[in-house]
C-alpha cells in the first residue's frame, strides 16, 4: 500500500469533477483477456480500426496505423472484427497470457 498521504474529503474536488483527460492516466490494459496482434505486412491503412476503437487505442501517425496502445486496449476485438483485409485480417485476436 502506498505510504503517500492522500487528500481528505475537504481537499478533494467536489463531486469528483476533474480536469478533462483523466482516462489517459488510468491504465485499463490489464483488464484484457484477449489480445490483438497487428500484422503490418497485411495492413492497408484504411483506419477502420481507428474509427471503431472505443478506447482510442489505435495509434496513428501521419495518416498511417502504427500500432496498438496496449496500456489502454481492453481486448474487445472490435478492431479485428472491422478489419476489411482478406483473406487474412491485419488485426487478429488471441488469448492474453
Amino acid at each position, binding site marked *: 500500500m502506498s505510504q503517500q498521504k*492522500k*487528500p*481528505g*474529503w475537504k481537499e*478533494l474536488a*467536489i*463531486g*469528483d*469533477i*476533474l*480536469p*478533462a*483527460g*483523466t*482516462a489517459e492516466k*488510468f491504465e485499463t490494459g490489464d483488464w484484457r483477456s484477449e489480445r490483438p496482434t497487428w500484422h503490418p505486412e497485411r495492413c492497408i491503412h484504411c483506419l477502420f480500426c481507428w474509427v471503431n476503437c472505443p478506447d482510442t487505442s489505435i495509434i496513428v501517425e501521419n495518416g498511417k496505423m502504427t500500432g496498438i496502445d496496449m496500456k489502454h486496449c481492453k481486448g474487445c476485438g472490435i478492431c479485428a472484427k472491422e478489419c476489411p483485409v482478406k483473406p487474412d485480417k491485419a488485426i487478429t485476436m488471441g488469448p492474453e497470457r
Partner: protein
Amino acid sequence: MAKFVAKTGNEAMAEAMRQINPDVVAAYPITPATEVVMIFAKYVADGLVNTEYVPVESEHSAMSACVGASAAGGRVMTGTSSQGLVYMYEILPIASALRLPIVMCEVNRAISGPINIHCDHSDTMAARDFGWIQIFSENSQEAYDSLIQAVRIAENHDVLLPTMVTTDGFIISHCLDKIEVLDDKDITAFIGKDRKPNNSLLDLDKPTTLGSIDLQDYYFEHRVQVAEAIKNSKKTIIEVANEFAKKFGRQYGLIEEYKLADADYAIVALGSTCGTAKVVIDELRAKGIKAGLLKIRVYRPFPAEEIAQALSKIKNVAVLDRADGWAGQGGPAYAEIKAALYKSKTPPKMINFVYGLGGREIDKDQLAHVYDCLKNIEQQPDVQYLGVRE
C-alpha cells in the same frame, strides 16, 4: 403585482416553473404529474419562457438529460410521479453525487403493484436515501412557494444538491385552491436570473471529466462530501425560508407546529393530511381536548433535532405514515422519529398508524379516532393500519 387566483397543485407548480424560467426541462408524462410538464410545455410552445424542452422517451432518459443539462451549467427542472420516479432511481443518486441542483416537481402516488394512480408517499419515501432534498407540501400554495425556494436552496454553493418538492396526487395536484401568485419580476430577483455554476461541461477553456471511476481510495470521501452537503442544507433551507417570509410574508421551516406547545395528544404527519388534522384539532380543542400537530415539511435533511425538541414535551404521540417501510415495524417516518427521540430525556409514548395507501380516503372522523386512541395509548398496538378491512 402579486394576485390571488384559483389553481390546482399541478397548475401552481407549472406557474412557478414559468416564473423560474429554467434553461432546460426534460420530462415524461405520468399521472398525476402529467399536467405539470404538459402546461409548462404549452408555455414553451407559446414562447412565454426561454426553456429548451426535451420530450424524452422515458423517465430514465428524463433524469439522464437533466444530469447532462445541469452539468452543462443550466438551471434544470423536471416533474414525475410513482413509477416515473422509480424509473429514475438509477440516476437520482448520480445527480446528487455530481452535486447538480436539479429541481423536481414530484407528485406523490402509490407505486405498483397492484397498479394504482392515487396518493400515498411510497414513491418519495423509497427515494429518501439518494441524497436529494425532499420538501412536502400541505397545499398548492406551499407547493408553489417551496418550488421557488427550492431553486435557491439547491443552487446554494454550500448545498449543491438536487431537490424535490412534492404534492399529494389528486388531493393537491387536481384540487382547485386559492393561491397567491407572486410577481414575475420578484421571483426573478429572488432566485437570480441565472444559475452560477462552479464549472460547466460546455466550458471549452476549462474542460472537465464528470462521472469518472472512483474506487476504494476516493469513493468514501466523495460520499462524505454529500453527507456534509445534506447537513449544511438545513441552515440554507431556513435562511431561504426566512428571506422568503421577509419578502413575501409566508413563513416556512423544517417543521411546523400547530397548537402543539400545550398539547397532551399530538399527531405527526406530512403533506395534505396536515390540513385535515388542523380542522380536527380545532374541533377537539373546542371540546376541551388538548390536541396538536407536528407537520414535517422537510423530510431530507431529516430534522431529527427539531422533531425531538418539539415532541419531548408531549405525553402521547401518533406518527402517521402514508407509506409502509416494509420492515415489519411500521412506516419510515415512525422509524426515524423513534430514532430521533432515542437520546431524549423525556420521550413521549408513541404509536404508528400507516394510512391512506393507494389513495384510501383519510377523513376527519379517522383522525379524531387517532386522537381517541392516544387517550389509552397503553392499550394500542405499536403499529396499526388505519381503516384497513380485516
